[in-house]
């Protein structure tokens, strides 16, 4: 079973790094569908490892299984921060295959995608419960952040006392409103960026090093 193999690998890797300065923290990239989580994960992974994490798509629920990129070393101010990035499926309370039909998808494919997306949400929630040491919460700054999903997830993250970095993504788009996100979660610092364009990534890395280093 792939998951167990991965877990085993992860454990042995963790054991092998026992003597390193610090074990890499596992950072989950969370957020609603189509917020740009995978784009961000790929941006980080490409910037620091040269590899991508997974395919990006404008069709929601492209990521339907959590994907990990381990031992991503980020250098800030001469100091190295090593993290494992977990790109998670977008979290939502409803998945409807008809949404995918609008993207020229056959019904069978849409239904399958819907089912897999639902499994993905379950997986994401499970990871949040047990397997992450910190969260990068990605929001599409062109969308209203006052949603049940955002409120609930941020609430869970807070209740777990997990360090969380809120990112206002897609600032390259005209309708972007970072302030709206700041207003929604005033208890957290919000960092703006465009993962697609690579805008403001330096500050994002600073924040990652500060929050998860």
């Amino acid at each position: 079973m792939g998951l167990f193999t991965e877990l085993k690998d992860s454990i042995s890797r963790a054991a092998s790094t026992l003597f390193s300065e610090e074990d890499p923290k596992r950072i989950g990239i969370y957020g609603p569908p189509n917020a740009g989580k995978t784009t961000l994960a790929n941006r980080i992974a490409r910037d620091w490892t040269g590899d991508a994490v997974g395919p990006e798509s404008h069709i929601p629920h492209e990521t339907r299984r959590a994907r990990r990129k381990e031992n991503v070393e980020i250098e800030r101010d001469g100091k190295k921060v090593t993290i494992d990035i977990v790109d998670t499926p977008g979290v939502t309370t409803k998945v409807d295959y008809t949404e995918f039909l609008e993207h020229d998808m056959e019904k069978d494919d849409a239904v399958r995608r819907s089912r897999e997306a639902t499994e993905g949400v379950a997986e994401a929630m499970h990871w949040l419960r047990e397997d992450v040491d910190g969260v990068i919460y990605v929001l599409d700054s062109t969308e209203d952040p006052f949603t049940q999903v955002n409120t609930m997830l941020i609430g869970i993250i807070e209740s777990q006392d997990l360090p969380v970095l809120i990112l206002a993504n897609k600032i390259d788009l005209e309708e972007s409103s970072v302030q709206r996100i700041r207003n929604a979660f005033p208890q957290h610092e919000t960092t703006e960026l465009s993962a697609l364009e690579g805008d403001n990534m330096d500050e994002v890395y600073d924040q990652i090093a500060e929050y998860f280093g």
Partner: protein
Amino acid sequence: MPHQCTNCDRTFDDGSKEMLSGCPECGGTKFQFRPDGFDGGSGESGAVDAGPTDDSGGTDPVAESPPEPTDRPGDTVTRTVGNAAATVRDLVGGSASEDATRAKPPQQTAGPASADGRESPADGGDDDIIVAESDPTAAEDTAQADARTQLVEPDEMPGTDGFDPAETDGGESTDQPADDDRSMADDPGRLADTPADVAETAETTTANAATDEPAVDGAGSDAESEQSVADEPDAERSVADEPDAERTDRPELSELRKELNDQFESIRVVEPGQYELNLMELYDREEYIIALQEDGRYSIQVPDTWRQADA
């Protein structure tokens, strides 16, 4: 033992799914929720019953009690049960109230004070009760409220002085565990008693007794009820009679059970390809759903600790 069958007293652990399809022991379908540390007197419905007894006072214990006592942080099972109870309330609407009324033995409803007692919670704390209630509250309009107000004039109540709080407590039967059992045993429509339940009960029952308002629940004895407003002793009888008229309005038990099952689900299959997800439930589960099937079943990966327990 957070859950207990009201029929045979079998208890179920937190998160148990056994009771979703009826008690395995006796087939009973009514369960009460008893959070850990419940002391029998200060539980979720503890403060509720005091309401009806405080008929002439300005304060309303029902209104003062928390609208959703089940909504305690960190206790999702409690919350789920609360949700389920709310769903049941929504489903049965006014008839749930009638069920509770029916639980009251006839001799206890015989005194005018009983109607009086039931009146006051709604009267004293309308706003709070509305908050506590769900949709059915909307059915009560000003006409009903007026009608109720008429009924509650304290000096119109000959039995107020001689009113025995204990009697009403027994009648409402949602307070102490023993009462709970009795009322729930008589009432297939209820799963868990909450103050909101009782608030609704009190209010709707009163409205039925005092007004001719078909919008509430289409009670067949409305005309009689209205007449009885002027005639206090009759009013009592009308309250006692109404549940019979309501009995036919109750939804099928299977529907209720289905709805409850849905509430407990982490993932609800609306139809193949359409899903509704209960994020908190997914988050709270120890097991992890790894594959969905179209018939609503899913494969789970259970934690290692479960396997060890089984072995």
